[in-house]
């Protein structure tokens, strides 16, 4: 990889140990992914925030570097393990809470915006077309590349942190103009968000760094997010292109049979003890839509809704949260279904959700059963 004089000097340690470590990460990542150089980025979005995922080693590392490190570009943050406003309602031990708060403090000390959201593309202004960014959250990286006209690698927690500190990122293949060698033909009729989540999951499994998808009709926001979430969960693919692609492209159909395969893999329970909505977190539009769907109805069991703090505040002002809480929803900000410590297999056997990403992690990390249903089906079956 070619480095500028300034980058070489930082890598040698002439600009301090934090920058040296950050450049070591960028060079190691760049060499591993065959990048030829580093390029400037304007926005970093970090993962590696939830104590449930990074543990003591992550907490200690962040605490150590936060005394010296400062981010150089706008940097936002993935969800953490809980919502401080209602954490006492859940059985989390004091150690978890204090370690999580230490992680939060470390990021804030480095100058990171404490957004605790996996949908930065929905709560922040999108920079101009073609802007280079570094997003570690997989659904956000795919959304940025596929819908927002931004360019990012599917970063790791470490490469995104190094990018935040240096303002640089490896210039690897996905940042250049790409032409996928695979086209997925969408053949399932009348898709809902669950269908798009499963399509994304399938695409992530069969795709390389990017895939074409043909046969897609108009998609709403929820469906786009579901597709990005599903894709980010199952593989390393970082971008959808819409259409048939080049003539020579290999074609694969996503039909009823392929969809059933994904469904069989992730749907492991007939019903759920509770419902979770969010993974990715809900935006304001989804909160509004849900409040409308729940007019005059109430959930028959617990329903946890995950959204960013800013969305919760807006929703409260407009009156959506009143309506949702009246219908029995628990609204949580700063955290999400994905890798949540708030759902424990000692208390819960199975969870109903419309999120493919949520289903994957509930099954594999929380070890609970998963009952997959679309939102409209959830409202029909689980409310009165």
């Amino acid at each position: 990889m070619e480095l500028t004089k300034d980058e070489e000097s930082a890598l040698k340690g002439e600009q301090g140990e934090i920058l040296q470590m950050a450049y070591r990460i960028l060079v190691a990542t760049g060499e591993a992914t065959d990048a030829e150089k580093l390029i400037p980025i304007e926005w970093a979005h970090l993962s590696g925030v939830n104590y449930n995922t990074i543990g003591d080693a992550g907490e200690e590392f962040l605490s150590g570097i936060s005394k010296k490190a400062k981010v150089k570009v706008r940097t936002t943050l993935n969800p953490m393990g809980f919502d401080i406003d209602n954490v006492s309602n859940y059985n989390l031990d004091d150690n978890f809470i204090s370690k999580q708060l230490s992680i939060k403090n470390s990021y804030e000390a480095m100058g990171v915006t404490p957004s605790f959201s996996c949908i930065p593309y929905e709560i922040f202004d999108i920079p101009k077309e073609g802007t280079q960014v570094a997003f570690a959250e997989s659904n956000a990286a795919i959304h940025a590349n596929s819908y927002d006209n931004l360019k990012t690698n599917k970063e790791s927690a470490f490469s995104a942190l190094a990018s935040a500190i240096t303002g640089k990122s490896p210039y690897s293949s996905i940042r250049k103009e790409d032409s996928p060698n695979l086209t997925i033909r969408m053949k399932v009729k009348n898709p809902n968000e669950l269908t798009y989540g499963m399509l994304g999951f399938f695409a992530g499994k069969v795709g390389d760094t990017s895939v074409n998808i043909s046969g897609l009709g108009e998609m709403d926001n929820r469906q786009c997010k579901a597709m990005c979430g599903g894709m980010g969960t199952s593989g390393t693919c970082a971008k959808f292109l819409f259409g048939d692609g080049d003539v020579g492209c290999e074609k694969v159909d996503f039909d009823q049979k392929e969809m059933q395969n994904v469904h069989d893999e992730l749907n492991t329970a007939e019903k759920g003890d509770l419902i979770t909505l969010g993974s990715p977190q809900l935006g304001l539009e989804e909160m509004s839509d849900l409040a409308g769907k729940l007019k005059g109805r109430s959930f028959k069991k617990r329903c946890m809704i995950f959204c960013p703090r800013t969305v919760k505040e807006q929703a409260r002002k407009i009156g959506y949260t009143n309506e949702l809480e009246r219908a029995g929803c628990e609204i949580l900000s700063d955290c999400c279904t994905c890798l949540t410590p708030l759902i424990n297999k000692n208390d819960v056997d199975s969870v109903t959700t419309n999120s493919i990403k949520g289903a994957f992690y509930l099954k594999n990390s929380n070890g609970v059963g998963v009952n997959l249903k679309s939102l409209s089906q959830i409202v029909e079956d689980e409310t009165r």
Partner: protein
Amino acid sequence: MKILVQGKTQGIILKSQQAINFLGTVDKKTGIISDKNHELYDKSIKNSILVFPSGVGSSVGAYTIYSIKSNNTAPLAMICQKADLTVATGCALANIPLLVDDKMFTSLQTGEKISIDTESSNPITLL
């Protein structure tokens, strides 16, 4: 040959034909491989030149590599058959030299003493 993390060291090779999942497989206090199903079970990777195909599993394993370095139980260097981002970022965090070379992976054997100098035109030499 790819040099992912630069450095200079010498030591004795500990080789595994099996990939390593650093998260949950390595005891951070001792550097001993604690996974009964692993070829290196009960062996310590501390102060070795660890030669293995690649890392597998969660990217959080990178923090484990950083931890074993902080606890002085880390290998002196690592040589892999193919690059993976978990080991790459872990070695970068911990400042452990990391080289990727398919041929070297095949030829190097446990017990051999080598020196590594990534600045040299011949980064790996048998001693």
